């Protein structure tokens, strides 16, 4: 055996030894943990997460971050002819038509927008998943019944549905949340049912059945956990939609009538009258809506990739 052969052989041995090693802390990696690990390596996910976290922090600490009282009007103190909303000294983003600080209103507005978005999405996910599990687990006539109902709800345009419900339940922020949630329910119900049906016919479900595992355990212990990832992704994406829809409903005047709670959509509606002279009054809240929605969408999209088993190592 030549020296060259020896060297090469040793190298192969080394490589082989390394290939057999499991890196420290890799034992027992769950789906969740490996997804998080992949998310951390994805720049898109990081951008999305940073945007979402920034807005959450702003919303949580609004009273400390806002430079002024979002409700205090400064107009009356210096009322004079020709006084128009817009930039003014001491107000970073200017004031609105009543002389209220725009920046403070945007900061406080994030609370309302995120709250409505999160609550309505959670509500939609919970109800939608309950219906989805019902249909996906039982099948048969239960499935038909639930899905026909969901189809009916789905066939009504979501904004029209939300408007009808807001009108029906009266004008308050809870009605707004419920209205948006109702439009989300069919999406989650369909999604979960579809993914449960696909999983129910899968080999491991049949294998579990062949081992005599009881049905409830198969549904909740095996099928459901495997069906959740599209729901998680959709929930993240739905947060963006919910925030936009909340703003749209406020814009249409169906939002929270309580003026003590500034809201981006309502601010947008309010700025309409001054669009030709002070477009920035509309641009800032619109930008907030867009950026938050973008943040959730980016996060959702990369979550979809991270949870996709095809990309698992």
């Amino acid at each position, binding site marked *: 055996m030549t020296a060259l052969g020896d060297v090469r052989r040793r190298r192969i041995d080394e490589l082989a030894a390394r290939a057999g090693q499991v890196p420290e802390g890799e034992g027992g990696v769950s789906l969740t943990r490996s997804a998080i690990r992949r998310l951390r390596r994805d720049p898109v996910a990081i951008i999305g997460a940073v945007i979402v976290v920034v807005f959450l922090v702003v919303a949580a600490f609004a009273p400390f971050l806002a430079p002024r009282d979002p409700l205090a009007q400064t107009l009356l103190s210096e009322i004079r002819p020709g006084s128009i909303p817009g930039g003014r000294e001491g107000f970073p983003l200017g004031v609105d038509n009543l002389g209220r600080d725009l920046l403070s209103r945007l900061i406080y507005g994030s609370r309302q927008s995120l709250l409505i978005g999160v609550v309505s999405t959670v509500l939609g996910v919970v109800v939608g998943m309950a219906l989805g599990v019902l249909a996906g687990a039982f099948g048969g006539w239960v499935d038909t019944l639930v899905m026909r109902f969901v189809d009916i709800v789905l066939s009504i345009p979501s904004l029209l549905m939300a408007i009808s419900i807001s009108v029906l339940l009266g004008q308050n922020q809870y009605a707004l949340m419920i209205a948006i949630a109702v439009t989300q329910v069919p999406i989650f119900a369909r999604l979960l049912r579809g993914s449960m049906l696909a999983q129910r016919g899968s080999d491991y479900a*049949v294998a579990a059945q062949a*081992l*005599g595992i009881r049905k409830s355990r198969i549904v909740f212990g*095996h099928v459901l956990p495997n069906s959740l990832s599209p729901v998680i992704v959709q929930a993240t994406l739905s947060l963006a939609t919910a925030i936009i829809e909340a703003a749209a409903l406020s814009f249409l005047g169906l939002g929270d009538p309580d003026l003590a709670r500034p809201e981006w959509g309502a601010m947008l509606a309010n700025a309409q009258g001054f669009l030709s002279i002070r477009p920035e009054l509309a641009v800032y809240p619109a930008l907030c809506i867009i950026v938050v929605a973008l943040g959730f969408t980016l996060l959702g999209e990369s979550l979809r990739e991270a949870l996709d088993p095809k990309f698992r190592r």
Partner: protein
Amino acid sequence: MNSFQGGPAGAPVLEVDDLAVTFTRRGEQSTRAVDGVSFAVAPGETIGLVGESGCGKSVTSLAVMGLLPRRGVEVTGSVRFNGQELLGARDGMLRRLRGADMAMVFQDPLSSLNPTVRIGTQVTEVLLEHREISKKEAVEEAVSLLDRVGIPDPRRRLDEYPHQLSGGMRQRALIAMSLACSPRLLIADEPTTALDVTIQAQILELLRELVVDTGTALVMITHDLGVVAGLCDRVHVMYAGKIIETADRYDLFARPRQPYTGGLLASVPRLDTGRGTPLTPIRGSARDTIPWEQGCAFAPRCDNAQDDCLTEVSGAIVPLEYDGPGRELRCRHPLTYPAAPAGATALGAVR
């Protein structure tokens, strides 16, 4: 109908009699996937169900386990487990039998394990379902089960997920799960198809040991004649939903009578033929069948076929008949052998 005779001591664990499975779909013609299949397995015995894809061997096993969907499937005949009729039995009773008294190992070990659940949870789950033991005892039992099927470092493996195990380990884990409650009947549906050859040999050896050690009755479903040769006491060859030949493994390999069996054996690559010799396939494909009502389903592909194979004879389908001790045959023109089979091999007979 059932002509099971002899075999190892004891009454058969499983008796399948005239089993037929028909898939019906609205607006479409129904398909008879399994047609009049009968066989029996005694404790400690291994039988093979052999045939190509779509011949009904997997459907047979699912029907025995009661795992076929209710809707659109019609199962007739009789499946008796320890003398107890399983067809039409209540779901709860079937569920208690499955996993405890009868178990099944599937083809693809990766997809048969739940990817989101730890191995340990999946093994203990079976134990907790069928036995009155505590969670702690179940974990200990799971460790010894994994150890028994030859998984090294079983305690660590319990915390791992299926994707972290190799293909062979996964199949071992699945076998461990199916053996958790020492079933009296194990159905293995092509358990080695998804594995590479060396692992195949290990898994087969494991199954063989288990049968010998515990006296479990094993039904081996396979298209691999090598598996049959190494493992099965008796072999049923299936074609187009029917058993067409039954023999013990020595007889089958030495003197296949059905031309289809002969073709299967002839198509296996052999070490003693010269290099570059083309393989001998069976003509056509599984789609070239005629309904059994019109003759022999294999006739369109058969070299031995004669006119009466392709036509209905006296209104009866080709019967499965006695063909010597321990043998049964469904063929009008079987392969024949000289009285003294000196040097007559399967290969020679077919050519």
